[in-house]
């Protein structure tokens, strides 16, 4: 039986799409901020959010701390 914390495969594909859309929106916002000379702190915040999303959802950081060695 699959653990409750692990999403099913179609869910994983859908989650990948959602994360990608979110990343694309953030990239577009970054471009707007950069080309309109808005405060650069916003760019740092967006970069950190984007990196966090990729590390958590695409790189599956939590897998590195798992006791059981299985693919999701």
């Amino acid at each position: 039986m699959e653990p409750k914390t692990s999403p099913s495969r179609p869910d994983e594909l859908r989650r990948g799409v959602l994360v990608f859309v979110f990343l694309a929106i953030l990239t577009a916002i970054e471009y707007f901020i950069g080309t309109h000379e808005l405060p650069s702190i916003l760019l740092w915040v967006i970069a950190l959010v984007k990196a966090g999303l990729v590390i958590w959802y695409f790189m599956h950081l939590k897998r590195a701390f798992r006791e059981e060695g299985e693919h999701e």
Partner: protein
Amino acid sequence: MSAEVPALKPTHSYAYKLRTQRIGLWLFILSDAFMFGGLLVTRFYLLGNRRPDLDQFVGLIVTSVLLISSFFMNRAEVHISQGNRRGFILSTLITMLLGLGFLAGVIGVEWRLAHFGPADGPQGAVFYMMTGMHAFHVITGVIFLAIILRNGLKGHYSAERHWAVEAAANYWHFVDVVWIFFYPALYLIGMAL
């Protein structure tokens, strides 16, 4: 008197190796991140609130290409984890092509469009060192993808056993994470020189 023999631990099981390999990969990624972090610090130390004079739209295009490649890399990993070999092969192939597209955009277009060379002061040193080192990682990532594609075509991976795919995917996403910081640092933050 006979010494008590301890029970054998399953140290060579796939699950055990998978756990240790994951930790090893993350340690490698961490060490590589320090190098890229050093380059990022160098950029702000040398250029401050100025940025290299680059075409911001080209920057957006290459960033988008790398972002889309990360999306397909994720799909490739999900597909192999559900035993969908065809989906895995297709997504890996698209990821590779997008990686090559990114290289063409940075090296083939941006390096040619730049009004300065690697030896033209701090902006040349910063720009070519950052993009060059990153491009080198993209090239190694594409080679890594070519290896898992070849092995995938030979049917070496299954839903239960595909560590190499997971490693290649993590490496590829790491290269994307690095560019997430390099993109604003090179193209968006500060006034153009």
